[in-house]
């Protein structure tokens, strides 16, 4: 694992120095939680038995994980590959698993930081009461992070050119966002869309987070959501293994 630490530090430095990364990963989700918090602060959705903002906080956490996993990691990988950085690294003894490992750890740390900030704002500014178990919450968050990072790598493997990376990742991101029950419950959507929405990883991660932290349920009651995320991980890794290219 020679080079792991230095590669990890480099990724963190790059993250802090790139304004678009900082914006999309930190400011963008923050903007949503504050905006929705101000709009929906006192609104209660009786049908779902919770405050609107309580519904949205887990959704915005899912959105933040998706920005990181799908948008940032996939596009930056395609860009670095396009520049020939991985080709240059392949001349050195550093192992490719080391490079990928450092990138995954870096993304995971950013996801943890994002989530802590969003949770803290929800609790402190908008009085969201967390009933559930933080350990369960962490398990679901980690599974979701692995899930969306895998999807990001699958996308990076399929996408050929640097130019098409951002638009293609955007499309996937927005489909997952709007059909994933992030801002409104899927049950208000037309029947045929619900069928699609119920297959998306964003729907399942949001449902699982909500069940655990807002409703205070255990992991057993969200096993379907966890299994669905697991299935997405398996499919994405399979796609990555088949189509992955370093050059």
């Amino acid at each position, binding site marked *: 694992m*020679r*080079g792991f*630490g*230095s*590669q990890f530090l*480099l990724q963190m*430095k*790059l993250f802090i*120095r*790139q304004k678009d990364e900082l914006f999309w990963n930190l400011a963008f989700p923050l903007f949503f939680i504050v905006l929705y918090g101000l709009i929906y602060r006192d609104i209660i959705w009786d049908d779902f038995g919770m405050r609107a903002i309580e519904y949205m906080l887990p959704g915005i956490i899912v959105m933040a994980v998706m920005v990181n996993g799908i948008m940032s990691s996939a596009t930056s990988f395609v860009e*670095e590959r396009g*520049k*020939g*950085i991985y*080709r*240059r*690294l*392949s*001349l*050195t*003894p*550093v192992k490719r698993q080391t490079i990928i490992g450092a990138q995954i750890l870096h993304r995971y740390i950013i996801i943890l930081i994002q989530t802590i900030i969003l949770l803290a704002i929800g609790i402190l500014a908008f009085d969201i009461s967390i009933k559930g178990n933080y350990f369960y919450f962490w398990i679901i968050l980690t599974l979701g992070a692995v899930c969306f990072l895998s999807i990001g790598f699958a996308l990076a493997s399929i996408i050929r050119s640097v130019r098409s990376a951002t638009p293609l990742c955007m499309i996937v991101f927005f489909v997952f966002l709007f059909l994933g029950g992030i801002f409104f419950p899927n049950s208000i959507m037309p029947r045929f869309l619900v069928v699609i929405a119920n297959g998306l990883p964003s729907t399942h991660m949001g449902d699982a987070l909500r069940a655990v932290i807002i409703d205070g349920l255990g992991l057993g009651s969200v096993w379907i959501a966890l299994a669905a995320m697991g299935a997405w991980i398996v499919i994405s890794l399979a796609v990555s293994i088949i189509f992955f290219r370093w050059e």
Partner: protein
Amino acid sequence: METILEIKDLTKRYGDLVAVNNISFSIEKGEIFGLLGPNGAGKTTTVEMIEGLRKPDSGRIKICGIDALAQPAKIKGLIGAQLQSTTIYDQVSIREVIDLFGSYYDNSVPTQELLELVSLTEKKDAYYRTLSGGQKQRVAMALALVNDPAVLFLDEPTTGLDPQARRNVWGIITDLRDSGKTIILTTHYMEEAEKLCKRVGIIDQGNIIALDRPAALIAGTGLDSTIEFSSDDIRAEDVFKDIFDSGTSFERDSNRYIISSKDSSGILKKLTQAADENNIEIENISVRKATLEDVFLKLTGKKLRE
């Protein structure tokens, strides 16, 4: 002399195209060896096979006595390479990127030393993307030297650089040679090959068509000098026909006339005389010794940069 690199019958095909055709050569410790040829001749394919970036279809590569194809991991510690286009992370300083590459090796040269070697000490905190082409090329050289390699590969190190930046890079390369490094250089600049290389392999369409010291290659063609001049007078070619024929070869490129001959002073005398008598204006006359460019022209019938 100790042989440090040995290439035998190396071949690479892409479909029907034979990019590198059965080439063999060996390189001695401490020399700068040049692969000279036009774009697409197979220079980069050859060095990238030696570096382990591409798999040859057949052939053998031995570096410091180690079979490079059988033990690629071992070779990575022994070689350093600057690729034709190196791009690294944009928003990372030079010092950071050299440190990073150093961290990949068991033993690495101190960053400060490398910065001095490529004269970038003052720029050490600048981001890579803010550098000029020449500075980026020097960073690429520093990265290639980070493991103190036994063999250094420089693939077109001065392509696209202005004359000043090119001379800077040449200075670094000769310093490296003087410090005992073995260097393989690819280039399509004959001047560069002539100036830097102890031996040059001329490569065309995947074949090494000549291999020797630059001076020996030039002497071997039997060409002593080339006389060049330009004239806008349309009668020039007819009037000077006999003079052109008395040389060993003649070539016309719109208004530019190029004559090769062993007897440059005789040709020059006849030329000026004929020009005076027929009142033909001739300009930009130059007489130069034959170069590798001429050798290439003679061997292939083409110019290097066509």
